């Protein structure tokens, strides 16, 4: 009789643990395949300066890329990875607002110098200008620490529209997974104490 009771007890214990494991497993996997950093995007920021080091133009906008996992360079004028940007420009006083797009990026080569946590993607792109699209503009995209991109557009090819030494940055926006659970109280307070307010 004691063996019988022990068997039943063991059966219930093992079964119960298995059931609990099944029901209460917490998924930590990223929910979307297309958000596994294959595709990255975010806002653009930057300024250009005149010869007196005064701010000439304020740059803003958005960018998106699938270059981060791309190692294949161009063949028949197409790239596996893509990079697009829409660059808004305006004077510091808010006048002369206009937008340029950088599209059709063709990756020619990429490199990741050791010890830099940066990857350079060199290629050409189409840049929209006032007189129409400028084709095959030498373009370099530098991704650093998976957090920021530096967009370089050959000044001579675009009539120095973005300045002599353009510095255009793109911030990598990262959709939050699980992180939102870390501080639910502050999230309920809107902008107070949130990560965006820092």
């Amino acid at each position: 009789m004691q063996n019988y009771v022990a068997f039943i007890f063991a059966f219930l214990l093992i079964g119960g643990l298995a059931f609990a494991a099944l029901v209460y497993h917490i998924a930590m996997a990223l929910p979307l395949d297309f958000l596994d950093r294959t595709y990255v995007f975010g806002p653009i920021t930057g300024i250009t300066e005149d010869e007196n080091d005064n701010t000439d133009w304020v740059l803003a906008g958005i960018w998106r890329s699938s270059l981060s996992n791309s190692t294949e360079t161009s063949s028949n004028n197409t790239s596996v990875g893509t990079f697009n940007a829409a660059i808004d420009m305006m004077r510091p006083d808010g006048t002369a607002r206009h937008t340029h797009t950088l599209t059709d990026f063709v990756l020619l080569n990429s490199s990741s110098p050791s010890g830099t946590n940066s990857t350079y993607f060199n290629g050409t792109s189409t840049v929209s200008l006032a007189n129409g699209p400028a084709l095959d503009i030498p373009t370099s995209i530098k991704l650093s620490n998976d957090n920021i991109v530096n967009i370089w557009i050959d000044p001579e090819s675009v009539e120095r529209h973005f300045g002599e030494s353009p510095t255009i940055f793109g911030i990598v926006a990262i959709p939050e997974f699980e992180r939102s659970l870390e501080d639910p109280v502050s999230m309920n307070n809107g902008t107070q104490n949130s990560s965006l307010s820092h």
Partner: protein
Amino acid sequence: MRLSRSIFLCILAFSLILFPTYHSPAYALEFVHLTMWGERGVSQGQFSQASGIGIDSEDNVYVSDFAGYTTHMIQKFTPNGTFILGFGTFGNGPQYFTNPSGIAVSANDTVYIADFGNPTYAIKEFMPNGTFIRSFGSFGLGPGLFISPGGVGVDKENNVYVTDFGENTNVQKFDASGNLLMSIGSPGRGDGQFNNPSDVAVDSNGNIFVTDSSNNRVQKFDASGNFLMKFGAFGSGNGQFSSPIDVAIDSSNNVYVSDSGNDRIQVFDNNGNYLTQFGNNGAAHELIENPVGIAINSQGAVYVADGRDADIHVFYPIP
């Protein structure tokens, strides 16, 4: 004798607890793979990353391309997949897209599209011919604001519901003019809380269903946003989920969920009882991988965006 009876009752109760989890009921609905179209590319009828699906009153199909080429990021097809038109251009502005995601079409055929990558212009509104109407919702934390607008749903009054996959972690309801009406949910794992809500749909009674993706469940709310129930947990069994993404509701108020990590569509009744699944059996070309967008037309045909193969699968219910 009393001890044996107690043990028997204990085993019986235990079995009843396990029964709903492991039991496989006979399917109440069955679906057959009808057709498919699309492939990876940048031409008409091709996609870089098929994402959301919406269907209008004439059963035309709208598909968003999350990483689409710089033009025709939204494509419109006939019910059998013939390309009609493309609209939506890459850029930064109310009418432009960065990463279009969820789509919903209202009863008057207004097309609402969430832009995951550009919350400054979170939801774009278009006419059926691709003419831009307006955008609403902006970047930030708080009412009417978004970090990563993901899924879109509409109710029969043409109110618009949008999930914020990002840090707002909620569902926001707007009227047809884009005015905020209410928000539902907060970050967490409790009832009425979300962890990466990815899509929303509304049944004919006004009940709101939300795919709570990282919590691997679906939650149901009444029309006022009060929590009613939840169903699903992590796993691959019937009624379990691995990263559910989109949700759609048929004319009988059954609930269809794209169970992304399990490569299938699961169907539930309006109370969350498991009914059937499809998309994970049949010939190789009929299988869906990483299903994302899902929509149902007036005939009950189910359109699924395959996130892996960048194509659209159409399943039809067997009468």
